[in-house]
């Protein structure tokens, strides 16, 4: 698994000036853009380690720099092929950023990269979670019908705690999957990512009501 991933990694040195590159799509030294395969790893695009934990400020900084560096407007006078490449790269950088900046999408990405299943293929949620979500929904419904603000506030606290807990489990599982994907971790991460969707729906429901 790791072998094939390394094989797909684009060069880390500029093919033009042979200087090390932070991002494989743009050389800061000779300011040359470098087309990379469409399936280039999102972390690699930003020159970040393939880990779940990431410095969000650093990601944002690199995103802004890259967006500026490969912006098609900067190449307005270049050959049409070059402009096409920059447009493709800009889209790739955008997509990678959208996924990596969101903790859930980032975990989902690591799961898919490691060969995990999609939610439609494996629908299970962690044991007991659906029943708990169902009960919370019923309690929210009741509190809304009584217009019980105190109860809703309490329910919101419970749901937020639940979200934090699931998020923590997702983080540790995603880290394990990024490091060394074991079948068991893949399955469990799938279940928790399924689960977090229900909890987020509860949060949305509460933010509408409270």
């Amino acid at each position, binding site marked *: 698994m790791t072998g094939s991933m390394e094989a797909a990694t684009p060069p880390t040195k500029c093919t033009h000036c042979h200087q090390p590159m932070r991002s494989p799509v743009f050389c800061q030294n000779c300011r040359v853009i470098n087309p990379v395969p469409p399936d280039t790893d999102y972390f690699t695009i930003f020159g970040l380690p393939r880990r779940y934990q990431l410095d969000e400020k650093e990601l944002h900084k690199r995103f802004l720099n890259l967006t500026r560096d490969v912006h098609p407007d900067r190449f307005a006078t270049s050959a049409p092929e070059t402009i096409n490449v920059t447009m493709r790269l800009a889209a790739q950088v955008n997509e990678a950023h959208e996924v990596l900046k969101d903790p859930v999408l980032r975990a989902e990405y690591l799961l898919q990269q490691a060969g995990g299943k999609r939610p439609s293929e494996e629908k299970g*949620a962690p044991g007991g979670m659906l029943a708990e979500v*169902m009960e919370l*929904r019923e309690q929210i419904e009741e509190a809304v019908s009584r217009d019980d603000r105190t109860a809703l506030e309490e329910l919101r606290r419970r749901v937020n705690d639940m979200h934090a807990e699931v998020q923590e489990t997702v983080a540790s599982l995603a880290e394990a999957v990024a490091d060394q994907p074991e079948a068991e971790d893949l399955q469990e991460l799938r279940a928790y*990512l*399924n689960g977090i969707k*229900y909890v987020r729906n509860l949060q949305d429901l509460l933010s509408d009501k409270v």
Partner: protein
Amino acid sequence: MAYSDKVVDHFNNPRNVGSLDKNDPNVGTGIVGAPECGDVMKLQIQVDDDNRVVDAKFKTFGCGSAIASSSLATEWIRDKTLDEVMEIKNTDIVRELSLPPVKIHCSVLAEDAIKAAVADLKRKQAARPHEKAKEAQPAG
């Protein structure tokens, strides 16, 4: 996207909304979810001594099609034996409600909920070996 008249009818007048006592030995509870959209569905069945469904209730938090699918499911499973209940397919629900392709997963959810409720009931029954043995004996 327009809902069919039957979906709208079930959505506006859902049949059998509510809960049964999940601790009742004759009640089976199925709670299922669709992780793609976050819909959650609870379907409960109550059987008599001949394993015929005498009551069915549901609670669904989801879109109109999910509500209609589970509402229709509770109507269909009433007065059926568990074996007959297990024969209900999501495609039957799709046909009855004229669900469009993007809403087929709602009918799948309803079928899963029926199966989960039956499985829960059978688990409960299996945990009562005494009565089970009595039932298994030929009459007379």
